[in-house]
């Protein structure tokens, strides 16, 4: 199976839908009011986390595993900081 072909992206789409549905349920349980601009922030955050992993994998393929791992760590650090800010932002308007 070609990992970069159609099935792969179909799988990614499925994962994204599952994550989005999970986030929606999580937000509802917590009483968060997710406005459109907060949803955009959440999508950007999800993109940052995914990109960290993708960049690592891509650089392993380019025989730059050490650089890829460092980039991954930087991405995860940014994701943690951004994620904490996002949770506080969401929680600030909880019902």
């Amino acid at each position, binding site marked *: 199976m070609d990992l970069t072909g159609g099935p792969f992206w179909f799988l990614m789409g499925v994962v994204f839908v599952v994550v989005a549905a999970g986030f929606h349920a999580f937000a509802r349980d917590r009483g968060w009011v997710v406005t459109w601009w907060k949803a955009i922030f959440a999508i950007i955050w999800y993109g940052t986390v995914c990109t960290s992993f993708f960049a690592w994998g891509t650089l392993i393929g380019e025989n730059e595993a050490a650089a890829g791992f*460092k980039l991954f*760590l930087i991405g995860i*650090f940014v994701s*943690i*900081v951004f994620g*904490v*800010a996002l949770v*506080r932002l969401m929680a600030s308007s909880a019902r």
Partner: protein
Amino acid sequence: MGPPRSDRFFALAALILIAVVWIVSALRTQADLMPVVGQTVPEADHIDKLDSDLYTAWADAAESEFFARIAIGSADGYGGPLRAAVAVDPIGTVVGIAIADDKETSAWMERVLGSDLLSSLTGKRYDDDFILGRDVDGVTGATYTAHALASATAAGSRKAAVAFDLPIKEPDPPRIVFGVPEIVLILLFAIGFVGHQSRFPYTKQARWVSMITGLIVLGFLYNSPVTLAYITKLVLGYWPQWQTNLYWYFLIGGILFVFTVDNKNPYCQWCCPFGAAQDCMGAIGGAKSRSPIRFRRLLIWMQRLLTLTAILLGVWFRNPGVASYELFGTLFELLGSSVQFAALGLVLVAALFIKRPWCNYLCPIRPVTDLIRLTRQTVKERWQKATLKTPAV
């Protein structure tokens, strides 16, 4: 109520220990410079020592022809004096340089030695200018060390030229360096002084302005926070040239002065750039003071022990930078090992949830300020006791 008696006892014991290590290390470091001197002119037949700082290299065994004079030049570096062996040929041209002794942080030194600075210094004449970035190559990110090496080479080449009876022009007096960091530091101390006043209504806002300015200017632009190396330098008696190190004098002098007069810390909570970075993370994550009451004393003493160990190592090796374990350079210059970057990441992530974890549990400056505070209080109490005992005339 004063501090516990155990604090006073251990503070005194620490000071005595530092003094003992200082004396022992001073007696120990009488290095033989001949091997270093030999590195400057490997082609010479043999080398004679004229005095402690001057050597003659001969071109032949019969000593009929000079190869070079080698002198030891010295200049202030980041961690203390940097000494270089400088070989000069009979017409006054620098033909070889070797580092005889330095107190620099190894990462800065490696950067300088890996640059083109040494090769651009070789071939200069003793009466040339040695100004970094103009006459010789500068080194980005290691300015203090590069400047020290260029100045030590200039001093050594002039000393060697005197031995050849070459005409020497008196060097210009050092130019007073007073720029943006010095001005900003004075302003930040002034903001801190005003902000500390109980009647000042905007303390919180003033503190944030001071912190953000410190983070940008003293941190990211100039990477000049107070480090353990500054304190060890003071203990070792490496007082840098005041004209070119006003910032150092303002910083250390300002902190000591405000502590002595006002018993307030003008630096840590007001303009420390690393503290500001943690405060910014804390503002994002809503950090709170989380000090486990059960282990509070243990954590304080661990921090003090760590600082004492670092100072003792610095004094023992007579190198202020050798035991500095701060992560300031890693954040502000993006320079450090993988371990340092990992530690920095952990500290910054922890700062999202815990208020200033580095300052509270690891920073070596806090035990030093505790010691200053304790000394001040002890002296004050003794003074008051002595004044009360003195009968009125």
